[in-house]
């Protein structure tokens, strides 16, 4: 027994570490973890309780009829209003509290290029330009009204 005491001490140290790990795990791992998957189940309710930021297209049309009508028949009909104007639930609830943003003139060329920059991986029929050669310095909206682009 005397000659294996050092081994027993090391084994005891391992047991202490393992118990410490189990205690830490008990304290750190959220109670709802793993109930419905490899994540914290309570997160679902917490996310549900977060305030809405996007109002959705149907909230824009009743007030902004002209733009909605123009866009409905245009090539941009699939793009939601808030894709360009930002999250606007607050504006929908109290229109005067927040003025919707729109891409600034100076930034517009980079903004439009997100979709319309020439790229081999885009379908060939999709309108694409090289912004460095295509009317440099001119805001896209001067020729292509964004609600009804041509």
């Amino acid at each position, binding site marked *: 027994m005397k000659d*294996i005491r050092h*081994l027993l*001490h*090391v084994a005891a140290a391992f047991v202490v570490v393992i118990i410490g790990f189990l205690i830490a795990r008990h304290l*750190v791992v959220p109670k709802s973890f793993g109930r419905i998957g490899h994540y914290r189940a309570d997160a679902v309710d917490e996310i549900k309780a977060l305030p809405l930021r996007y109002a959705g297209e149907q909230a824009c049309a009743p007030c902004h009829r002209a733009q909605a009508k123009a866009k409905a028949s245009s090539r941009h009909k699939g793009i939601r209003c808030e894709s360009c104007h930002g999250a606007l639930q607050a504006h929908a609830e109290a229109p005067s509290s927040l003025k919707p943003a729109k891409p600034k003139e100076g930034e517009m060329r980079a903004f439009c290029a997100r979709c319309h920059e020439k790229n*081999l991986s885009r379908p060939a029929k999709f309108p694409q330009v090289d912004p*460095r050669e295509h009317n440099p310095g001119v805001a896209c909206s001067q020729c292509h009204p964004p609600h009804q682009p041509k």
Partner: protein
Amino acid sequence: MHASYMETLREAMSMVSGYIYPNELELQWSVLIVLYPYITGLVAGAFILASLERVFNVTAVKPTYRLSLLMALAFLLIAPLPLQVHLGQPQRAFEIFMTPNTSSAMAMFGFVYVWYLMAVLLVEIWLDYRREIVAWSKSEPFWPKRLFYKLLTFGVDNVSPRSLAIDDKVGRALTVIGLPSAVLLHGYVGFIFGSIKANPWWSTPLMPVIFLFSAMASGIAGVLLVYMFLCWARDEHIEMPCIDTVAKFFLTALIVAFTLEMLETLQTAYEAEEHFDIISLLVEGKLYFSMIFVQMFMGSLIPMFLLGLCQLFELPEKVRKVFYSASAILSLIGILAMRWNVVVGGQFFSKSLRGFTTYKMELAGREGLVSALVLGFMPLVVLALLLYLLPPWGESAHRRKEPA
């Protein structure tokens, strides 16, 4: 969106050739992921060399036994760092233990790592050094060091012949367990790449085996080089029977690793599946220098030739030393290139099999060259510290060079 972002995108697009998918523009696994299998490989190789003496009784390699264990430990302690720096979320290293995800190979790797570090390597080193630790805990004049040794005795200073004999038996048993653990540790790294079925450059069941043998070659080369360097630095005789034997195992590991790689290449070339065209373009183009020249010619063929010469002819001691160290340096560079070719090379070509992306390494960023160099040299700093705390040169392991 900021205009400068578009400029960066345009610049990156100009370096792309052929057709690639948008999400393939940026290489996700950077130079740090090259470093990670390289470092774990050195761990596995060093440990396997140590086990030769312990399990297979290859007594000639005894002078490198402790050094191999310390090298394995130094590199193992740093091995997860490149991954953590790459992720930028170090707390995840603890999260994989707190909430283990059994279906993730990468997450389970944490357990393989801890098992190998805690249950195998640390205990084995402790058992091997216990006699000295007890002696140092009494005789060391520098008190923090003495306290460190005192803690390491775990309150027992019994070094009776029977207790040491028990230590030896337990140590031997641990090495027997440790050997498959070391194989698992590095086989696992190969497994992670080999199981990515979307990438034909990686997805082969041979990947864990190829990684393993190249790991053995790199680990043995590393120990050989450090051993020779330390002997030179400490003005001690290099035990020629020791390095001759180590070189034999080094050559064996190199031959097996190279043959497996060639078999795999041959098989891919002969099968010539739909991905073969892009892979041959990759090897003939972007990877020509790093694969054909550095990995195969410089890192495998030249060392095999030099080590082969030492086996075939009775070369003088001096020549053998030069050949051994040159082979070790070349194959260490070659194996680093192999990791590069696998990790970065495998991300160069598109899943469309019709185009290539590019990789421009940052200099000083989080995943840049400086970061990789620091992480690459860090194990050597840890090794120096370990050599200071646990000097491996016992009274019988080396003998001083006699004055001429």
